């Protein structure tokens, strides 16, 4: 596993520039681990069967309670879900199985906690979509999420936090405008990345896959971009205060992220942040011209294509200076 292997592209290049027989190319694709071998297929079947089993079972349980069967006594309803939660957690705690399998089961149990709260809300009419439903769900899976070491569960947890905040704003009556709520979500998700990185550095969590940071960062960038775009269109009516803070927050966080990306030689942030900036500038051009003439569309179209081209050129040059041999 440790030795870097020849990539598919390299095989294509060699094949292009030689009379390499097809059978031999196929063998190389197998030998280099590009095509799945027997062990890979066994692993695939293992994970796929378990994931499908857990997903279908949890979905079945959700549908079962969504049906709201009146003949079933409320204690039986609650008992079934609680029984399932306890049973799955016992499996996680006591069964001698691979960690990844325990993690998948724990993720299933976390979803069941949501079902439990939903059933509770259904029976006692607390309103199943109220923010306290999501708040309860979030709070009660926090410890599992934290100690699971399982990035998909971190993501589920963070998604719940985001939903709770949005519903809290809508239902409790804070009634913040859209750009304020975007700013709050941006702050929450950026903090989540920073905290996760810190916990990883001080080894409270053992593993932090790149896709976690990337997905959360993408979410955060979308939030602040939507917030600022919204602010640009609405600032004449809602005032420029929040817009100013959003822009300031974006400048600070984007600056830090770009610094991090350059020092860590990672192109991901350098892809998404400029896109966000391009979208914001495009909106700003549309807002200041405030007219529907063809010239504005042409200007925006040229701006988008040229700025993306310049960005791609910059990224390729940067990549060359990082990884190129000369």
């Amino acid at each position: 596993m440790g030795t870097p292997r020849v990539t598919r592209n390299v095989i294509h290049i060699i094949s292009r520039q030689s009379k390499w027989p097809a059978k031999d190319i196929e063998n190389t694709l197998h030998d280099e681990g590009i095509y799945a071998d027997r062990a890979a297929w066994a692993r695939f079947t293992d994970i796929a069967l378990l994931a499908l089993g857990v997903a279908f079972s949890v979905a079945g349980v959700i549908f079962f309670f969504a049906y709201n069967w009146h003949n079933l006594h409320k204690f039986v309803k609650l008992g079934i879900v609680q029984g399932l939660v306890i049973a799955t957690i016992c499996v996680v705690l006591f069964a001698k199985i691979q960690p990844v399998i325990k993690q998948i089961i724990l993720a299933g149990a976390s979803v069941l906690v949501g079902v439990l709260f939903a059933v509770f809300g259904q029976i006692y009419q607390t309103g199943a979509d109220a923010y306290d439903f999501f708040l309860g769900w979030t709070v009660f899976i926090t410890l599992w999420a934290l100690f699971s070491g399982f990035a998909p569960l971190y993501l589920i947890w963070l998604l719940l936090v985001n939903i709770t905040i949005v519903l809290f704003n809508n239902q409790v009556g804070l009634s913040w405008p859209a750009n304020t709520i975007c700013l709050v979500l941006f702050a929450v998700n950026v903090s989540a990345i920073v905290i996760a990185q810190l916990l990883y550095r001080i080894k409270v969590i053992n593993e932090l896959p790149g896709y976690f940071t990337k997905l959360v960062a993408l979410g955060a960038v979308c939030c602040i971009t939507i917030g600022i775009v919204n602010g640009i269109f609405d600032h004449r009516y809602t005032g420029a205060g929040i817009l100013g803070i959003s822009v300031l927050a974006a400048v600070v966080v984007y600056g830090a992220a770009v610094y991090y990306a350059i020092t860590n030689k990672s192109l991901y942030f350098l892809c998404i942040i400029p896109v966000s900036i391009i979208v914001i500038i495009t909106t700003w051009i549309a807002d200041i011209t405030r007219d529907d003439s063809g010239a504005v569309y042409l200007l925006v179209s040229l701006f988008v294509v040229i700025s993306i081209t310049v960005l791609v050129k910059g990224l390729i040059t940067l990549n060359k200076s990082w990884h190129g041999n000369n």
Partner: protein
Amino acid sequence: METINRVDQLLEKLGTEHGEQLQLNRLEIDKELKEDAHTYKGLGIKLLSIAGGLLGTAFFLGFVFLSVANSKEAQLVLGILLMGGAILLNKASKSTILDAACIGCYLAGYAVTGIAMAQMQYSENFITGVLLAVAIITPCITSGFMLNFFSVLMISGCLFTLINVNDAYQLIHVLTVVVAIGYTYISLFEADLIAGNPELNNRYMAWLNGMLFSFIALLTYLGVRGLHYHALENLYVSAIVIIVVIGFLLHHVVRAIDVPDERSKILIYIMGCLVLLPTIFAPAICGSLLIIFLSYSIGHRTGLIMGIMALVYFTGQYYYDLDYTLLVKSEIMLASGALFLTAWFILKKQLKRYEQN
């Protein structure tokens, strides 16, 4: 550096195995490898270029509608110029830098030409035929990734439009089957295709991805009832052929990975049947299973991710569209879940053994 050493080792091995017969052009290989090492091939830049190209196209169309809306001829000339310019630009520069501009011009070219011809009162069949011809000619002229990728999408899009324009909805099954078989063929016979012809080799990845996305688009049409209403009947026609294709793929994989005993082989086929039979009225679901199996088999990450996303979405959509009560749906799901978990439990030990060697 280590990767380069691995390449050297591979080339050395090939040299000793095949000798002069190989006709290895070392100079060109080194040149291409050097270029390859310098290009960032991550999905990020491709997505960036595509997003830029699509956004640019959208705004450019706004400009066309507002500025040259009343001159059909000007639009036609503009459309042809845009398409021609995109193809020439793509042919001239292999770099990914100009991708956004190429995609923008190419797609805007299609749209403007199509609109201009529609204003000139040409029939829909004629317009689609012309655009189809352009999409077929483009890959003959340029080997650039993006234009080849979008050409494959345009070809399947035009065929789909022709079927819809002529109300021959049942032909959608034929198109789905052709795309499914084409996609499977391209995936499974990669070695034959890239060894056979350097021009094909150059375009291989673009066509593979183009077929993948065309297939997903067709599956979406088949899988979302709201898209085809009652126009399309007999969904099982596509599903059966896709299931047969998956059967062929299973057979191919069983042979390739050298399953040792007859018992395991029979078990694999029985499990395959058990998973696939319930999807006989849901071509979108078995189609996404085909994508997952194929992509995993040949190590195509984009395909695998798209396939998993498609499977989740189409399964959800299928249950949503099903005319049963929630209780019955829940029973079906619990039964399926129990089936998968039982299978996992029974096979666990055997799978573990294979995973370790």
